């Protein structure tokens, strides 16, 4: 007999990349998110790195970069950026995510 854990392991797990692949998204060439590096450097919590549900934020050699193409447009990073380093505008009309089952 299998343990509960073994039984439940049968459920398929998708990586975040696979999940993002499922999202219909018309990607713009222009980023709708910009980061003010000067302000960003002073930030103590860097919560953008963990709050983004698309894992769009990454830290490279002390600098935070954003892969705006993966953005799900929730805006959480903008709100959590308490110092205001992240400038977040809605993607231009017609661009960005297209949810079906929201």
């Amino acid at each position, binding site marked *: 007999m299998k343990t509960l854990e073994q039984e439940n392991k049968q459920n398929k797990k998708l990586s975040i990349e696979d999940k993002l692949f499922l*999202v219909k998204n018309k990607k713009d060439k222009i980023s709708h998110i910009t980061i003010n590096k000067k302000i960003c450097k002073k930030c103590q919590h860097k919560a953008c790195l963990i709050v983004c549900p698309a894992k769009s934020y990454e830290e490279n050699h002390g600098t935070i970069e954003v892969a705006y193409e993966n953005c799900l447009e929730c805006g*959480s990073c903008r*709100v959590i950026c308490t110092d205001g380093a992240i400038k977040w505008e809605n993607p231009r009309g017609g661009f960005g995510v297209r949810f079906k089952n929201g």
Partner: protein
Amino acid sequence: MSQNDKVEVIIVGAGPAGLTCAYSLAKRGAEVVVIERGEYPGAKNMFGGIFFSSIMEKIFPEFFDEAPWERFVGKRKFSILAGKSELAFDMMPSAFNEKPYNHSFITLRGTMDGWLAKKAEGAGVSIITDYCVSDFLYEKGKIVGITSGSGDEDNLLADMIVCAEGANSILTEKAKLRKKIDPERRSIAIKENMRLPQNVIEDRFGLAGRQGAAFEYFGEAVQGLLGNGFIYTNKDSLSVGVGFSLSDFIKNRNGKNPNDILEDFKSHPSIAPLLKGAEIVEYMAHMIPSDGFDSLPKLYRDGLLVIGDAAGLLNTSFFHEGVNLAMASGIYAADTIMEARRKNDFSSQTLSLYEEKLKDSFVLQDIKNCKNFLSFLHKNKSLINDYPTLMNDILVDYFRVSEKPKTAVKKEIFRKVKKNVKFTRLAREMWGAWSNLI
């Protein structure tokens, strides 16, 4: 559009608030244009899953027969996850399983917002999609129009603008109606749509016909953050997700991102069997307002009204009503605009009527009533974390089969409780819970 194009009312955002406002105005003869940044109404919208429909059904009595709702909420469960255990309160009130089904319908926004948009268009509303409003246009301090920021030819002017932009209220900030949003005033919710055959859903959740289940999970479901996990049954898919306060990601971080927390939730031994064989079709994210009565934005200024999520109009308590309040605010905004139109005066003085109407209704009264709900829970996390775990431990001890005499078991339990609970503190917390949560 040319630079001088002008209409009577522009509504920014084709969600339930904006479309209701538009429909209500058009029905009374006003010229209304709804501007939507997505490719279709609903393209940028997401919610947990329950459409509270009492306002909807007042406007559209055909809602029940015609609207694309998935299932009515016949079964509800409030559950606490502790470790690998679950403790739950299950309900299936017969009153909620017959018309009007407690005005609670599990819904997907893509289809429902589209249905509402068709109703608005039927009443004469024009809906322009693929247009993102980047800012308002001003004239002597009055808001007089909108711009996409890509050139004057896209500008559109109006007597009145209604901002129904949603929870990520960028325009409301630009119009100086609110300061930069505090992370404590927003939650993030992520959701997956998981396909599962209709008969499997009905067998697995014990549902008959169009009956649906709304399961909400607290405690370990969101790993000590302030929020909850959920499963809602659609016709042939499940809405599965988690939501939690953004401020917890600053204060209370455990390094996990929302998707990690969702995956942990989905693999909990109580949840995983419910999802067996379900295929992920879509992954979505959205913010939820939790402004609360004391930090609502200013709701109007010359030429502008703010409605729905943009105005922070959401019942943040156990009820989690959003759509209902959004639609009500849309109607009160429409009533106010009709009055302003009659007087030909769109100044903030006339528009203040909107706030009066909200105050006289369940919208602001309910928001006022639950104003301490979230701050109380933020300050008293033991209520959602420690006590549920202890409660689970106690029940496990109580029901555990052994040869130990039950009187000895009871004594042990009492000692455990005494060790873990300070009764004066518990009394204080219970009183706080009674006055702030219920």
